[in-house]
């Protein structure tokens, strides 16, 4: 064992510098649930298992993530002016949440304009270094669309309530949405940032007929890959052949290695509405 603590506090130095335990992380017994309100002009209350959970929830807003034990939840969405959940505008619907999974429940218009709700599963797979994920979800009262990136179709024939996704190089995309087979935008163009290690989820929502189509965005970070190593020396000119341990004692070093061996294994489904 030759790792050396050359200078510093005793055990667990790297851990002691404050490597984070994920504040919000799905686990073997819990799921993450966010809720997007994508029905225009209708502030709502959201009831989960009969309890008022979101009060006066505004169109275009994203709530959560809620950390919930895996299971089935009954969701009812009422107008915000309602006094209880006895006559919901949407639902009641049962959402089954599996552990170790991230979900977004979206209240939205179906293709013909009727309010409905869809439960999407969010992709938390690790993204290669230097890339981000773009997910696009069609939750608008509109027919099939193409999603254009910088003017050319990136995804075609997307229908409500489906999604498409791809890993893309980090950068800014000028995104727009057009009726399938056309390039005249019905939404956008708008700049969408592809951030490294982030799943950027873009929702098309609103109504084509009512001329209020818009884009909403939800981001899930912490999906990045870590570099495989740091190859910082090729000359062989400074070889430290002395195996003598210096600095703190062996016990401290063993503890350091044990602490250092703990990798950040749990997926962080931390997210922001941006």
């Amino acid at each position, binding site marked *: 064992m030759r790792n050396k603590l050359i200078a510093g506090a005793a055990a667990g130095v790297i851990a002691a510098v*404050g490597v984070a335990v994920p504040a919000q992380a799905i686990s073997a017994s819990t799921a993450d649930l966010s809720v997007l309100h994508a029905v225009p002009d209708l502030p709502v209350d959201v009831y989960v298992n009969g309890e008022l959970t979101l009060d006066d929830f505004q169109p*275009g807003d994203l709530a959560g993530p809620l950390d919930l034990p895996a299971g089935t939840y009954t969701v009812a969405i009422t107008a915000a002016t309602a006094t209880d959940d006895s006559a919901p505008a949407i639902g009641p619907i049962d959402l089954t949440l599996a552990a170790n999974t991230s979900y977004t429940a979206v209240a939205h218009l179906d293709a013909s304009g009727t309010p409905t709700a869809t439960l999407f599963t969010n992709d938390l797979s690790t993204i290669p270094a*230097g890339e981000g994920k773009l997910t696009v979800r069609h939750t608008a009262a509109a027919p099939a669309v193409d999603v254009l990136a910088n003017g050319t179709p990136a995804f075609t024939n997307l229908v409500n309530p489906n999604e498409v996704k791809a890993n893309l190089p*980090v950068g800014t995309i000028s995104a727009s949405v057009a009726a399938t087979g056309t390039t005249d935008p019905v939404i956008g163009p708008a700049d969408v940032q592809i951030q490294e290690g982030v799943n950027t989820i873009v929702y098309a929502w609103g109504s084509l007929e009512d001329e209020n189509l818009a884009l909403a965005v939800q981001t899930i970070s912490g999906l990045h890959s870590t*570099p495989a190593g*740091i190859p910082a*020396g090729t000359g062989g000119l400074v070889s430290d052949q002395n195996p003598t341990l210096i600095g703190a004692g062996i016990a401290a070093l063993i503890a350091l290695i044990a602490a*250092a061996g703990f990798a950040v294994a749990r997926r962080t489904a931390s997210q922001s509405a941006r």
Partner: protein
Amino acid sequence: MIARIVMSAATLLLLAGCSVAPVAAPRDLEPSPPAPAPTAAVEVPTSSAALGPVREPVPPVRVVIPTIELDVPIEPVGVEPDGELELPENIRVAGWYKYGADPLSATGSTMIAAHLDSLPQGIGPFAALRDVPLGTEIVVATADGGEHRYAVDSVQSIQKTQLPLADLFDRQGAPRVVLVTCGGPWSDALGTYTDNIIVIATPVT
């Protein structure tokens, strides 16, 4: 479609507002007070999902350790095709992992690495890192003209095979600067040094 639903909800409200009043002289009938608005059982964070600008990183451009006269310019780097950290070929220039934190990030490691040496170029400035005492001041200059001060918290030599990479490249823990180069014995068989020298420094206000 929407108008219809709003109307039904409003209609429902009207009906709910009328309670069954006790039988009394007609002129004494009063509407009962409306039921109290329900309040949510928990506070759930909610924010607008409108598209907006995202934070641009502020790259570090120079790292200085005054007490050992180390003064090294910094370039942004990514990863090589084999997945390892990219490093500037010039051993007198350090690389900042551009996908990680920067000195203005609220959380995470600002990772700055440089070659220890190379045969054509000799021994580089980061060779001095292994001897840096605890508490040594490190100054990192950023592209916006700012200067950020840190104090050395630890200096470690860790075998590359045991390197806690996820921790070193952490993006969510307390903000810190991590300076890395190679160290330990040279291995002819591997054609590389066997260790990395890791200096961790934490911000001083």
